[in-house]
């Protein structure tokens, strides 16, 4: 067996309050494309950051090319032959392609930069990968895909033995991905070891040789890709060892389907999600299931108008309505708790009370402030009902735990009495107690006639509270499964893994 070009073992890395990596081992052989898989928070990014010297591991050894190494920083990693291309290209878009390839190490002649050589050698390097570009054009004038390829060319010319590609395909279209894969295969023939991170299963199976799976900071295993079915891979990533799945709650929730609230007809957005047909009813909980990047959040954002759809239309009753801005959606009774609580949801400097009344106040307009007494009543009521802790309305919301922040966000929308409540990962990263409280709340809200769209990466949770499950995959709604009591996480996984067959 060939000697690994990069081998790490026993790697641990902790941050205050969380163990990001726990005794992880990983090896990369020359001339292979190796997938690193895992759900959000599995430790992929941390592992990559350890390999590139951004983070220093608390424990463990790194062996590069047979010699033990301690990687001190990104530059040091590069000198050891480890180059990284990130999702966001970190080159200079205002410089030319050739300048970007040689920046910081320009060939010199008589002490001055030899621009001729820069251009000639850039063209040669690109030609080796079958890329025919105008090397004098500004990098920013090329598509993101080409920019990514230029970043790869630059990385490889730094004598890279190991090339780390961190989600390079997330913003590329099909043709561009194919081009990237051609380049990756060519590099593999040259003996470069490539570590490939992607959320698209399809792509992993298309281009990779082996796969390492992480979950919750621990190593799950390393497998030749041919010996692992998609279904097994998804199960390993999500940790839903099927036999060990806990028993579901006593009964699946009764469907008390009310009137139809909204009918989406071919609603989609280029690059985010393919056109979707979906009916949303009062009193019904619709679960959106799919891996990260499958388009579940994107669909939710379209319904709320957080992003404007560029195709399709929405009916409310028989009337065509516009949900193209949050304001328009709010006026129609839609509410949305975004996935990124901190970035898109709460105003961290404001108090619990201010955050809770914000949506209602925005709807009333600035001239009609909620009176002191009314504020206290409303906020007090929801602090009690949702058991927000600490129960002080004037605490800055940044001092609350994740679960309580989520409850504040929920309270903000509940006081507006919405018809349709969209929850994107409302229980992620919060403790089990708050989690069950939120689940129970959702079920009872639906029981009172509210329509709910519920997004979660945890399938048991989706099953526990949803009446029907929409399965998404590769930015496409694949199928709808009724939660009739016979639906199992296993079947949803199967659908996620084999979605292409159902299409």
């Amino acid at each position, binding site marked *: 067996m060939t000697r690994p070009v990069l081998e790490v073992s026993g790697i641990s890395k902790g*941050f*205050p*309050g*969380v163990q*990001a990596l726990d005794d992880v081992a990983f090896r990369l052989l020359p001339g292979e494309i190796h997938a690193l898989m895992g759900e*959000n*928070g*599995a*430790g992929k*990014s*941390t592992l990559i950051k350890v390999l590139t010297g951004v983070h220093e591991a608390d424990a463990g050894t790194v062996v590069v090319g047979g010699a033990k190494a301690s990687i001190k920083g990104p530059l040091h990693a590069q000198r050891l032959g480890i180059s990284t291309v990130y999702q966001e290209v970190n080159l200079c878009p205002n410089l030319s392609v050739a300048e970007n390839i040689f920046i910081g190490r320009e060939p010199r002649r008589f002490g001055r930069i030899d621009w001729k050589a820069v251009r000639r050698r850039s063209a040669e390097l690109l030609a080796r990968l079958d890329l025919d570009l105008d090397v004098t054009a500004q990098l920013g004038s090329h598509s993101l895909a080409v920019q990514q390829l230029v970043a790869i060319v630059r990385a490889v010319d730094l004598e890279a033995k190991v090339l780390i590609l961190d989600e390079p395909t997330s913003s590329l279209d099909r043709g561009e991905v194919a081009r990237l894969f051609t380049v990756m295969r060519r590099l593999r023939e040259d003996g470069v070891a490539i570590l490939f991170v992607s959320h698209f299963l399809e792509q992993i199976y298309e281009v990779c040789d082996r796969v390492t799976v992480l979950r919750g*900071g621990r190593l799950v295993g390393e497998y030749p890709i041919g010996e692992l079915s998609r279904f097994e891979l998804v199960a390993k990533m999500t940790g839903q060892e099927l036999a060990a799945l806990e028993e579901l709650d006593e009964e699946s929730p009764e469907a008390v389907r009310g009137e139809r609230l909204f009918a989406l007809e071919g609603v989609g957005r280029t690059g985010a999600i393919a056109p979707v047909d979906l009916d949303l009813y009062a009193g019904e909980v619709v679960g959106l299931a799919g891996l990260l990047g499958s388009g579940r959040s994107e669909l939710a954002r379209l319904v*709320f108008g*957080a992003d404007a759809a560029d195709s399709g239309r929405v009916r409310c009753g028989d009337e065509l309505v516009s949900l193209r801005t*949050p*304001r328009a959606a*709010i006026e129609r009774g839609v509410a*949305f708790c*975004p996935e*990124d*609580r*901190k*970035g*898109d*949801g*709460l*105003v*961290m*400097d*404001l108090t619990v009370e*201010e955050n809770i*009344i*914000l*949506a209602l*106040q*925005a*709807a*009333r*307009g*600035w*001239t*009609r*402030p*909620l009176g002191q007494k009314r504020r206290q009543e409303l906020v007090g009521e929801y602090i009690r009902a949702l058991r927000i802790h600490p129960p002080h309305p004037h605490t800055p919301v*940044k001092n*609350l*735990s*994740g*679960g309580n*922040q989520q409850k504040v966000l929920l309270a*903000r929308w509940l006081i507006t009495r919405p018809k349709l409540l969209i929850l994107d990962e409302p229980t*992620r*990263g*919060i403790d089990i107690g708050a989690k069950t409280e939120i689940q129970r709340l959702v079920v009872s809200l639906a029981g009172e006639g509210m329509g709910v769209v519920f997004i979660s990466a945890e399938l048991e949770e989706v099953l526990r509270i949803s009446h029907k499950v929409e399965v998404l995959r590769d930015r496409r709604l694949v199928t709808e499964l009724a939660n009739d009591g016979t639906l199992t996480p296993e079947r949803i996984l199967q659908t996620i893994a084999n979605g292409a067959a159902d299409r």
Partner: protein
Amino acid sequence: MNRAAALTRHTLFWPVTVWVVLLLANVAFTPGFLSLRIREGHLYGSLIDILLFGAPLILVALGMTVVIATGGIDLSVGATVAISGALACHLIAGGHGLIVALPVAIGASLLLGLWNGLLVTRLGIQPIIATLILMVAGRGIAQLITGGQIITVDSDAYKMIGGGYWLGLPFSILLVAAALAVTLLLTRRTALGLLLEAVGGNAEASRLVGIRSSGLIVLAYMFCGLCAGIAGLMISSNTLSADGNQAGLWIELDAILAVVLGGTALTGGRFALSGTVVGALIIQTLDTTIYTAGIPPRMTLVFSAAVVTVVCLLQSPAFRAKVRRRPPAAPVPSAAEQEATA
């Protein structure tokens, strides 16, 4: 946490402390510094002078606070001061009454604010650049109005705004007090303050709760223009002249400084109007101190800079933590932060 600790955390604690220290320093140099006396029915004294000379700065800084709360900044207030004064004097010198001159000057200031607001919201230009345009162009406009000369006027009614007395107090102090009261009412008795703080604190979250942030931001710049316009009237009325070149020169920097000294962060969000007033008073008192303490003119800038540095350091949580003997425990990251690092 004990009471003293809670007190030192109050936004107003350090600005007020510094101001009081400055006043006490003045008493040390001039024993009768704080005394007030009545002469010809008017109240006189160093404190009154500080308020009187500081009135335009307080006004401009009030407007600046609101703009900074939205996460913006307005560099053009000095130019607006010049334009407003120039317009008023030009019209009065041309034989028009105050009834024409004042509304035109105020209306022009509002228009200038509207221009800034539209550049920031509609065209998405960064506030510092958007208002830089008017900062430079505005001086030119003011000089066009005055014809490059200093216009002088002779109008007792106009003199009232910046140099007159009413109920024994300088009229401009009353005007500033009224402006502060109205601003406090508008921001704290309506929902305007909350919505401004939400927009400045997290623009995306504000969009997602349905706040019309563009409208609010335009309103903030118009308010800032209005304040600068009134300040311009005060300054030109006090000397009964309009100088397109010198009026309000560098007042934007003092105003921004006043806002920061008062405890409002330049990043936007939470704002403290009363803090801003104290900040402006610190700056004005500093000016006075330099004269009473007999600090040589060549030292004045260095001296002001030193005091400003001290106030900024006192306000900085990082600095206060360093000064304390025991370094505080590292903040425990919230769940979201942990996710981000995982």
